[in-house]
């Protein structure tokens, strides 16, 4: 472990190219990240950002191109070489070991660990190290018990503890509240300004890029499409560099909610155990009217998932009522059918599909046992399923090799389109959606949001849970904040402020 009066290093790539067979993932990309700068790397999914970063970190051997550190050419044969040069990476998913404490995670990740660990000595050294760190963290708690923001901070601290002075941050704020994101990025910004650290951050969020970074580099389809100082670029220019001339689906304009709109979903005094079984989630009162989108904001792990599982029938409830159009709803197939309840869960491949069944079969889950008149049939007709799926695939622009491919072979965006096609076809009175755009690229996101808005304008009541606050602000008519298993705040969209919502998400009220 190096001392933390460390010196930031500058990193440069020259003509970096990476080919996988005939596919060119990265084509002659040269970027320059000077020592002590905070650099943003922008691009859609599949633009080559992670390929570039993996080449720098030694996970891939680039087909062509050089890496310069502090102006000197270096050979990086593997991740170990990269770490020896002081290059470190904080991944989007956490790489901390959940059942180990923070201290154990730090010590074991070190290059040289003594056979027998003298915890008294280590603790003293860690305490001394933490004093120099800009953030305080409990190190004696199991990582599994830390909040997402704390885990993210610990990831960064781990890299610093290992003596890294150039960090790649891969979408570091995707799991944080706006407040936590501000704090973490602000601290990172401070360290780069002090010259202790150089940071290359992969991000999708323009407002973060504008607020914290110095320069940007934009990739599209493996090519460098733009670079420049953040202070000289507008969001519009950045977006143009990112998506080029692709048309982006526009949101349907928002039809006003009619005053006499019927109440579709009513939840009263709902109680259910959470995942740990130690706490309960407690939804006092929630109603969603026809033709409106009600958003539920919250940091993951505050009971949204459990609430959704109760509505979906995946979790038993201890008490309370769920009414759809006035009749009790227990999420049986028959009820969902008569009351027109549709459901788009998060991670659709896992929660809404049978991954190895075909695209056509998956798309027919709601209707395969009904005939055109909606009456049960006794023999399944594959022909009808195929026709139905063909129609939907065209309508929702699902890209699939064939109707008979397993749905797991589709890309994330196309799985989500297939699920949307299934759930949004036919009469929809209530639509329950959770994190619909997680991990999807720009154009898929725009299209999926447009579809949800369209369903709303057609009169569906929509309950939208999302960890992406921007998404909620864009789509919702009303926003609730869920914290610690309860709905703690409600605001109509007209009066919504990111700051107030963020404070409630963090449970400061």
């Amino acid at each position, binding site marked *: 472990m190096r001392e933390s009066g460390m010196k930031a290093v500058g990193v440069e790539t020259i003509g970096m190219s990476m080919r996988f067979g005939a596919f060119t993932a990265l084509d002659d990309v040269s970027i320059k990240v000077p020592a002590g700068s905070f650099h943003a790397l922008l691009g859609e999914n599949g633009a080559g950002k992670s390929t570039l970063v993996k080449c720098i970190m030694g996970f891939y051997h680039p087909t062509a191109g050089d890496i310069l550190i502090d102006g000197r050419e270096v050979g990086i044969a593997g991740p170990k070489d990269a770490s020896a040069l002081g290059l470190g990476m904080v991944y989007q998913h956490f*790489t901390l070991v959940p059942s180990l404490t923070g201290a*154990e995670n730090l*010590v074991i990740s070190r290059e040289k*660990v003594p056979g027998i*660990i003298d915890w008294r000595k280590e603790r003293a050294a860690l305490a001394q190290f933490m004093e120099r760190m800009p953030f305080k963290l409990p190190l004696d708690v199991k990582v599994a018990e830390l909040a997402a923001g704390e885990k993210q901070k610990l990831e960064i601290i781990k890299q610093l503890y290992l003596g890294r002075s150039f960090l790649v941050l891969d979408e570091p704020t995707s799991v944080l509240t706006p407040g936590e994101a501000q704090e973490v990025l602000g601290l990172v910004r401070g360290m780069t300004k002090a010259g202790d650290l150089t940071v290359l951050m992969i991000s999708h969020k323009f407002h973060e890029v504008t607020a914290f970074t110095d320069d940007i580099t934009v990739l599209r389809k493996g090519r460098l499409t733009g670079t420049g100082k953040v202070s000289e670029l507008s969001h519009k220019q950045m977006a143009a560099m990112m998506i080029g001339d692709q048309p982006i689906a526009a949101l349907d304009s928002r039809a006003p909610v009619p005053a006499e709109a019927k109440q579709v979903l009513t939840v009263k005094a709902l109680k259910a*155990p959470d995942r*740990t*079984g130690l706490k309960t989630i407690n939804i006092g009162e929630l109603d969603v009217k026809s033709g409106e989108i009600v958003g539920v904001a919250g940091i993951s792990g505050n009971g949204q998932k459990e609430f959704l599982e109760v509505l979906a029938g995946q979790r038993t409830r201890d008490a309370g009522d769920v009414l759809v159009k006035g009749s009790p709803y227990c999420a049986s197939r028959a009820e969902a059918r008569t009351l027109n309840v549709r459901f788009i869960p998060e991670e659709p491949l896992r929660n809404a599909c049978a991954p190895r069944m075909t695209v056509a079969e998956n798309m027919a889950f709601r209707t395969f046992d009904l005939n055109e008149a909606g009456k049960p049939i006794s023999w399944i007709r594959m022909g009808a399923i195929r026709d139905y799926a063909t129609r939907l695939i065209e309508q929702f622009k699902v890209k699939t090799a064939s109707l008979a491919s397993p749905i797991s072979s589709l890309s994330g965006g196309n799985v989500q389109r297939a699920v949307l096609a299934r759930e949004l076809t036919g009469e929809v009175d209530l639509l329950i959606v959770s994190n619909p755009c997680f991990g999807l690229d720009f154009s898929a996101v725009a299209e999926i949001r447009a579809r949800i808005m369209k369903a709303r304008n057609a009169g569906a009541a929509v309950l939208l849970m999302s960890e992406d606050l921007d998404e909620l602000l864009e789509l919702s008519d009303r926003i609730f904040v869920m914290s610690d298993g309860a709905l703690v705040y409600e605001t109509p969209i007209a009066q919504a402020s990111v700051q107030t919502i963020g404070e409630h998400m963090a449970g400061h009220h």
Partner: protein
Amino acid sequence: MDATEIGLWGVPLAMLGGAIRVSTPFIFVSLGEAITERSGRINLGLEGTLVFGAMTAYAVAVMTGSPWLGLLAAAAAGLCFGLFHGWICKFRGVNDIAIGIALMLFGSGLAFFFGKPFIQPSAPDLPAIPFGGWSDVPQVQAALNVNVLFLIGAALAVFLWWAFRNTRAGLILRVVGDSSDAARAMGLNPNTVRLIATGIGGALAGIGGAYLSLYYPGSWTEGISSGQGLMAVALVIFARWNPLGCFAAALLFGGAGALGPALQSVGVTQGYYLFYAAPYILTLVIMIATSSSSRSLAGAPGELSITK
């Protein structure tokens, strides 16, 4: 003095003695399995390893006249079984549970095949230390006649409990068991760590087998194991992967197993067979009492295929 004279005191005393005597193989197998499962793999083949270890230990002890050499041979045989399991499981698409069941049957079958000539001859026993010399009561003396392997097992449990948190090897084992991705990010090869962990687990199971044939019951027969190898796997889960918990669970299980014979010895003539089932009923009851339908097992290694 016979059993009736100390009356019903004979029952708890016999259970204590039984707990110490019967629990030793459970201790070794469950500690071995705890190491293996902490690395993120499950080895159901330990039953086969146990039986093969029992046969090997007995055969070597008969041939060399030294129970210690027998013990060593059993550990080596167990190590081979464990390494074999670990090696097969590193391949993609191989299911550790299926391989475990295959190895369980293979180990038992192989032990019966090689063990036929050793059913008759008698082998020297592993030594026991009489801790009951202070008492005149023979039951007390019998109960406190403690085999060295039990003491080694107890020390091993404490050592493992300490080592899981205070040594590099212990932390690496837990990292690999909890998250293969994190382990790879640290430059560790999860397969190598699991191979070693499965090997050590097998060696300990082999030692458990040696105890069976060289001390209690103390002879090699084909029916030597009554499923200790499998029960020990359940004990590990019941003990929540904690070595001290494994030790306690093994004692509890051993004590419950001694209930039937103890009742018989104090003159209960009817229905004591029912109490032979006590350990299994006890396990079921505890498992049901400590489980929950809505919560996953606390402390389970994240990479374990049964809890994933």
